[in-house]
């Protein structure tokens, strides 16, 4: 099977079908039970099967990872083959968040711990006294990801909590697409190859929102999706050849776009959606622009570069 077909099938079509086949009946059943609150409704209500989204994110990512890397291993010494383990950790946390309601601060601590695990999995093979990443840089990255990443995910999760239905998947689709493109511009082609898996899940959440307005991605879904994005970020820094640090910082800040919804609870939802998309777009657009500026110059032969539009196989 051709590589592109394999990626499209296992990292897009199959996860999409599985997502629709599970999300729609699960959330429809919750709706029929009358336990869902509508968008903007601040009443505490049963949340529905919120644990399902992180499961679907992992299944989709695993399909894409299999298409690119082949069968996974329980563990591997090779850093680039540990993405499935890092994403599995974040999705497991997402499932836990969906099943067990905990105070916000505990959720933030758990997210920080999981992100520390992500940094360790993807960064430890490259870190050490004589390794590419000095120990103090590695520790700095660990602190930045755990504190900053946890804060960003927690704020984004709060925004998703207040805006249900189609809102969150629309913003996350923009975020995932932009982050994957920036990561690919910084030589992590794997991000572009696994992004369709997330798109497949989020698109089907969007579809289901047409039938079930109360579908939501907070308490698990946001953690899982942003966990993948932060795994890309760590991979771009430690494993690939990231063009500049500001690019990584901008991508790390992009979930704040979703968090903006929480800052405008009284505004109409189209305004909130517009602001969220603009903030997300500004962060990722700036990251892409900086990547373009920081990209190495082409060859000096003067002849047209036949690989000017090189795309990873």
């Amino acid at each position, binding site marked *: 099977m051709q*590589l592109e077909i394999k990626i499209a099938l296992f990292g897009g079509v199959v996860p999409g079908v599985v997502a629709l086949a599970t999300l729609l009946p699960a959330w429809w059943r919750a709706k029929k039970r009358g336990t869902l609150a509508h968008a903007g409704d601040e009443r505490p209500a049963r949340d529905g099967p919120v644990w399902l989204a992180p499961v679907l994110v992992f299944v989709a990512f695993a399909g894409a990872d299999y298409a690119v*890397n082949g069968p996974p291993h329980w563990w591997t010494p*090779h*850093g*680039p083959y540990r993405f499935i383990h890092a994403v599995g950790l974040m999705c497991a946390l997402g499932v836990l968040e969906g099943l067990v309601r905990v105070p916000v601060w505990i959720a933030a601590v758990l997210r920080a711990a999981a992100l520390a695990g992500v940094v360790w999995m993807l960064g430890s093979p*490259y870190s050490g006294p004589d390794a*590419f990443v000095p120990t103090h840089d590695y520790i700095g990255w660990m602190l930045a990801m755990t504190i900053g990443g946890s804060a960003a995910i927690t704020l984004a999760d709060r925004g998703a909590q207040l805006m249900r239905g189609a809102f969150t998947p629309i913003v996350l689709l923009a975020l995932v697409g932009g982050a994957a493109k920036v990561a690919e511009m910084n030589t992590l*082609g794997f991000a572009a190859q696994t992004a369709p898996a997330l798109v497949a899940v989020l698109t089907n959440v969007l579809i289901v929102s047409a039938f079930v307005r109360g579908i939501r991605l907070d308490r698990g879904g946001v953690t899982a999706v942003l966990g993948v994005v932060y795994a890309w970020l760590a991979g771009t820094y430690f494993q690939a050849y990231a063009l500049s640090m500001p690019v990584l910082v901008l991508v790390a800040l992009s979930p704040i776009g979703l968090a903006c919804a929480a800052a405008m609870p009284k505004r109409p939802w189209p305004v909130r959606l517009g602001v969220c998309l603009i903030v997300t777009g500004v962060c990722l657009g700036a990251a892409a622009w900086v990547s373009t500026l920081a990209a190495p110059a082409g060859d000096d032969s003067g002849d047209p570069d036949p690989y000017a539009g090189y795309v*990873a196989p």
Partner: protein
Amino acid sequence: MKTAFAAGLLTLAGAGAVLGGWTSSAATATAESATAQRTDTVTYGVDPVHSNVLFKIRHAGVSNFYGQFQKFTGEVQFDKADFTASSVSFEIDIDSVDTDNSKRDEHIKGADFFNARQYPKTTFKSTSIVDNGDGTYSMTGDMTFFGQTKPVTAHVTDLSTGVMRGTPVLGFEASFQIKRSDWGMTKYLADDGGEGGGLGNTVSITVAVEAGAE
């Protein structure tokens, strides 16, 4: 009488000195000869300017793609009388991969393929060289690549020696193949582990060496 005695003493002293010197020289010469007989190998350092490290891999199942490494070092402990008694060691800087396209080079040495930041070097150290009887040799050694060390056997051809600007030089070409999946590099591999995927499984490596005596 006294003069004759002194002259005799001087003569004896002189003879003794000459005899001692000769003996010492002879001993040194003997020792040097013995040393030379015990160490017939000469160290040759690989000349990176006149050597090449090339690799070939199947792309998209339809074409052969070639690349090379620009930075490497090596040493040949060359026994001129018996090449099978020689040894070869080599180290390649993975970050120096060159495919004539800077974007592709960045991609290849990144996480998706060579993972140069985790495995910056590839090394080879020969353990045995066998004469095939047809002017070629089979050189077996330990190759460390992608964090693992495995034995490989290279086919050595075109072994030659000469002198270049007064310096003894030698040259040969070594070629071998590996299955990248054996080393844990499975990206874009076909389901059957063959050559039909985005990138093939078999990597052909050719090392053309020119080395000068040190």
